[in-house]
């Protein structure tokens, strides 16, 4: 059993993860069902993080996939473990192993307490390959209800304000704030007028427009307390 990601490592934020289950003779299994539970082992406690169900990858018979949103990196003393449970022909199997989760180069996940005193995890999914264009932007939003329970948050809005701190906070036109799509992820449009380092300032609003977290960028306020970063 081997895990795969697009860049070959697990990092903070949103990770699409693929795996195959192989017999000892190297043939792949195509009739398994599986679920996983990531677990962070901290000095004083354990907690999980947002994760998806596992399904077959598109256009594949034996590759399984899902995603996990790690809100923090692991270290020597505090580390992530992945419990993977799968059943083949009614027989259950369990694997539990340490996984290495490294800090992403740029900020792609925010974990914070909102003005409603609830804890949220917000992670950027797209763009993974940003262009000088209007990019499709995608993010996932979860609430933390206890250490092991992370439900998807519905009907919120994520206001975006992309800026270039290196260019006197230049911003771009024609951005569209993120709202929830049919796949439960939040979707919008992100304009990037040039390559380089961009800071995407965020504000999280609930279904009636109350600001849960984040501040508007103004002449006097250079950036929001929650943001994503992109560099290309």
């Amino acid at each position, binding site marked *: 059993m081997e895990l795969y990601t697009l860049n070959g490592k697990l990092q903070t934020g949103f990770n699409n993860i693929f795996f195959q289950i192989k017999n000892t003779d190297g043939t792949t299994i195509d009739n398994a069902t599986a679920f996983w539970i990531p677990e962070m082992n901290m000095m004083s406690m354990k907690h999980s993080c947002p994760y998806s169900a596992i399904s077959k990858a598109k256009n594949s018979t034996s590759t399984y996939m899902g995603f996990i949103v790690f809100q923090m990196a692991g270290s020597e003393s505090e580390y992530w473990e992945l419990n993977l449970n799968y059943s083949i022909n009614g027989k259950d199997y369990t694997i539990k192993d340490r996984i290495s989760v490294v800090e992403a180069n740029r900020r792609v996940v925010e974990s914070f307490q909102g003005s409603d005193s609830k804890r949220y995890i917000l992670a950027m999914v797209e763009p993974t390959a940003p*262009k*000088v264009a209007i990019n499709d932007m995608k993010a996932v939003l979860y609430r933390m209800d206890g250490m092991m329970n992370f439900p998807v948050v519905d009907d919120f809005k994520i206001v975006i304000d992309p800026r270039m701190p290196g260019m006197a906070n230049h911003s771009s*036109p024609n951005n569209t704030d993120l709202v929830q799509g049919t796949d439960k992820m939040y979707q919008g449009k992100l304009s990037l*007028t040039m*390559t*380089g380092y961009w800071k995407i300032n965020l504000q999280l609003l609930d279904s009636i427009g109350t600001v849960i977290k984040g501040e508007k960028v103004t002449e006097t306020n250079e950036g929001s307390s929650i943001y994503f970063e992109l560099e290309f």
Partner: protein
Amino acid sequence: MVNMIRRGSYAWEPFLNGMATERSVITIDGMRIYAACTDKMDPITSYVEVTNLAGATIHSGSASSTGGSTIAGTLDLVRKKGSFGQSALNGMAFTGFETNNKQKIVGGSLNYSHPKFFTDVDFTIRDAGNYRAGGGQEIQYSQFTKYNISAQAGYKIKKHQQIEASLIYDKAVDVGYPALPMDVSLAKALIGSVSYTRHHISPLISQWQSKIYYNDVTHVMDDTERPNVPIRMDMPGWSKTAGFYSMLQGTSNRHDWKANLSGHYNKSLAEMTMFSNTPNEKDMFMLTWPGVQTYYGDLFIEDKYALSDKWNAAFSAGLAVHHNNIDNQFGLQSLRIFYPEMPGSKTRLLKRLSASVRHDAANWIYTFGAAYGERAPSVSEGYGFYLFNSFDRFDYIGNPDMRNEKSASVNASLAYQKAAFTAKINGSYFYIDDYILGRPRNGLSVMTIGAYGVKVYEQLKYATILNTSIDLGYQITKEFLWTGQLGYRRGTGENGLLLPLMQPFTYNSVITFARKSFSADASINGSSSHTRYNPQFGEKGLPAYAVFNISFANRFKFNGAQALTLKTGVENLLDRNYTTFADWNRIPRIGRNFFINLIWSF
């Protein structure tokens, strides 16, 4: 008729009838060339050398606009050219020096003619340091170095048939632009053509000339030489043009006619790379001209008709197809940030018409003409992406959805000549529909650090431009001639908007003395104070000025065809510190400048 807009010592931009180069068609020997600089640092006129020009053919409005569809007019730079004849080799060498900016000029030419063959080769090198304005203030970043070599050859295939080839290579390095925030480390152009000419084809057709041409311009703009900049940037640009024209000319009866079929293809690309002040951060890159292709085809006819020995009339008409296409995906996606629905290409039809009459009487000549012309938005106006204008300090965004700009114009002149006195009064009036102009757009964030805002090209309902001039001449004695010129323009747009860069009342007055091989002249040129200016474009008012110049020339003859011409003189004799309406960002002009030129011809 022509103002030169100055951004430094080098590459002045010719304004025809008070209008920028987008509104005119400028050609070199009939060839279309597109500048490669987004900041107008390289008007076409900068790629030739004054010393090898025979002249410039200027037509106002769309009259005689063989070069293409235009509003302001056409300017064709005609180079000196050899001719078939007796076997002979002649040439010249010249050198010059100017004290103010230490400009050194060296050049030479060789011309060989033969009954079946001719060739000319000439080269010029100019090198200048910073100039000093009146009063001695050094104008930083006003230096330049320019090399120009040009060659032409003709071969007579048979009687009345000839082919010619021509090549210009022009290279400027280390050119400073004191009025702009950036300089140019390299501007180079390679301009080549081959033409075929046939004379006396039939009683009706006197000449058929066809030319194919190609030119390639590279322009490297950067701020490497500037000590303090908010962020370092490089902005190179490239322009390649291939084209042709095929022109028939003839005379019959009382008609003198011309028909020209022409076309060209251009690709303009410019980019900007900014280097972050934060170490290890990636460079910022964008396309400022997103790889714009222009395909242009044009048919033009003109007929001059002698109604009687006193009345002449002229008509011309042209129709052009203009097609823009953005073939660069990166560039197209960039522009779609502003125009999400924008198609990648656009086709336009450009029409032009003109008619004029001329009446010659005993001492008087009257002319009257009317013209209609259209133009497509330029590459910058249609597709520019964050182009910083250092005069009004706005970033400009092109607008691909604009309609053609249309102009209806009338012009009239009245000339009088009696004995030693000549006078001519000239006027033209342009009414321009859908006048293209950048207007501030709120809610857009500037790209250039320190810019005041963002302007997007839009169209004023209308703008009007009035041009007037008076030319006077008086032959006082056989040796003394006085000439004088007065000029004034007004440009106004919708809602009383004052158009930028309009010439106030300007004048010049020259007395020339000529006896045998010696000549001298003393001149004064000046302007009234500049009060009709528009601060929205960065303009400021200016006081009146007057500048005096004198020069002397003498030609010494030696054996045979050898001669040495010496020219010397001084510009701005009184070292006035002055600035004109045509000075970008109001940089002052050159102070007192002594010059000397030596020309040895053989």
